[in-house]
């Protein structure tokens, strides 16, 4: 673990988090804009290298946005986490004014987790198409995918094609024996739900 930066104690609202590598802090959602401005202007963290989110599934707060900063002169990494207060419609202020790099990262985060970044100039999907109805990296979204209409409605009408779940049964993750992939493929993930059996409701999964 690298040593904590000296300025951390000047910000009473920061809470230290456990980390195996770089210093890591939890910042309240209301303070992140001011803190990020200070990081860039006063403490030399001029690169926002990464911005992403983690879905804690059953826990609350459910969504955590994680920022990684790098100082191009001091060569130190810093990890800042922000918990979204609302589990149903999570919102975090956008850093795109301070770090233009955040623009696309935040769009991706919205695309994958449905976290809204308030103040973002262009909060649209980036990897999936505009009308896509789901947030694929949320934990309740199945690995195989969910059937959805194709983005081009006119073509879909003529061809009758739609986006279907990945053919995992007998597909790329094929197992040598007959039967369900979950029964024959040695995989460690939660196997209680597959493309044929839906995920158990939240409470049941929690008691397991």
């Amino acid at each position, binding site marked *: 673990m690298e040593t904590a930066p000296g300025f951390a104690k000047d910000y009473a609202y920061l809470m230290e988090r*456990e*980390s*195996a*590598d*770089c210093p*890591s802090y939890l910042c309240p959602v209301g303070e992140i804009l001011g803190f990020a401005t200070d990081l860039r202007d006063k403490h030399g963290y*001029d*690169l*926002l*290298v*990464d911005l*992403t989110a*983690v*879905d804690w599934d059953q826990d609350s707060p459910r969504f955590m946005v*994680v920022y*990684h900063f*790098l100082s*191009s002169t001091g*060569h130190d*990494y810093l*990890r800042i986490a922000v918990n979204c207060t609302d589990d149903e419609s999570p919102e975090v202020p956008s850093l795109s004014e301070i*770090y*233009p*790099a955040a*623009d*696309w990262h935040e769009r*991706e985060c919205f695309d*994958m987790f449905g976290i809204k970044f308030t103040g973002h100039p262009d909060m649209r*999907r*980036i*990897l*999936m*198409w505009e009308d896509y109805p789901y947030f*694929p*990296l949320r934990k309740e*979204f199945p*690995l195989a995918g969910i059937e959805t209409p194709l983005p081009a409605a006119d073509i879909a009408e003529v061809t009758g094609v739609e986006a279907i779940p990945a053919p995992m049964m007998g597909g790329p993750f094929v197992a040598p024996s007959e039967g369900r992939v979950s029964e024959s493929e*040695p*995989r*460690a*993930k939660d196997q209680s739900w597959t493309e044929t059996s839906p995920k158990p409701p939240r409470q049941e999964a929690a008691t397991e």
Partner: protein
Amino acid sequence: MAQQIEVSLSDVAGRAHEAEAHLETERMALNVGPSHPTTHGVLRLLMELEGDTVTKCEPVIGYLHRGDEKIAENMTYNQFVPFTDRLDYLAPLANNVAYAITVEKLAGITIPERGQALRVLICELARLSSHLLGLGVYGMDAGAWTPFMYTFTEREKLYDLFERLTGARFTTSYTRIGGVARDIPEGWLGRVSKFLKELPKTLKDVDNLLTRNRIFYDRTHGIGTISKEDALAYGLTGANLRACGVDLDLRKDKPYSGYEQYDFDVPVGTTGDCYDRYLVRMEEMYQSIRICEQVIAKFPGGPVYAEDAKKIFAPPKEKVLTSMEELIQNFMIVTEGPSIPAGEVYFEAENPKGALGFYLVSKGGGVPYRLKIRAPSFCALSILPKIVPGHMMTDITVILGSLDFVMGECDR
């Protein structure tokens, strides 16, 4: 007889000028891609043109999105190695190494010296192969065909070496958590040395064809200029960032896998235009050769796979077949995945395209809880709306070529 009218040239010019002033112009929307030779993959650009000048450029990405991060949450750590090949598919070995180091950092595994040296060697060879292709197609984007033939021939030799080492030319999947899949084959280092000795001759040829080439210089110099501040603000990394004058190379500043033992220079540009990006990549190849030669000169002996990792990942095969305890352990690892401690870690490696980062969250057990891939190409493309407007349509190919992005990594 028709009446003769005398018309002077200045009259015509004057009238034309007057007409032009009242001429209605409108901007044209132009769509480039997603399948277009200059976009190097499946990138789509929505552009607005005024005459030949681009006034607005909006990249549309996601055509190669395969959901690698979702897949990672559903498989054990070693199972994900082949998926890293498909990120930056022009330097799969470097991706393998970056991913392996991330997991090792969380698991607290130290790699033996020979494994580390071998990883540095394959990372630098991957950089050579990526830059050889990158510069070749960059020259082609600017209208120079011949250098591409030279660099592609050299890259082919490299791919032969990769095939000898890993069994595959592109999809190498060479690293394992804790080391590499197998030790080097006999005589392989000699072949690499021979290749490294011959490569500078080709580089000189390409140098002669491009560096002082008037056409290439005119097409790249002062085009696509990125200021130091913009480069940092938009999160550019690697050669793209260094061309703008920022001296940041993770191999020097955050050494991993024993990079601190090797002596090499970091080329840094001054103006941040397309020509500077070319120069930086060109010099980086000479530096990569230097590093490779040093690695080979003091290539350490010993194992390539960490002893600690065997406990977590795979007991030796002969023991599995003969001893009860190892058999049970092997069964547990195969069915449940190796046990990695809970925690989170972020690691970035200096890849050919820039800093490839992995943010790994583990809740313990055999699979990652969350794996975020920070792709340098994703950040490099996000700066397009900022730098492209004001350039001519023909400059777009040059700018795209100079950024040296790869969509497999951008879309994940």
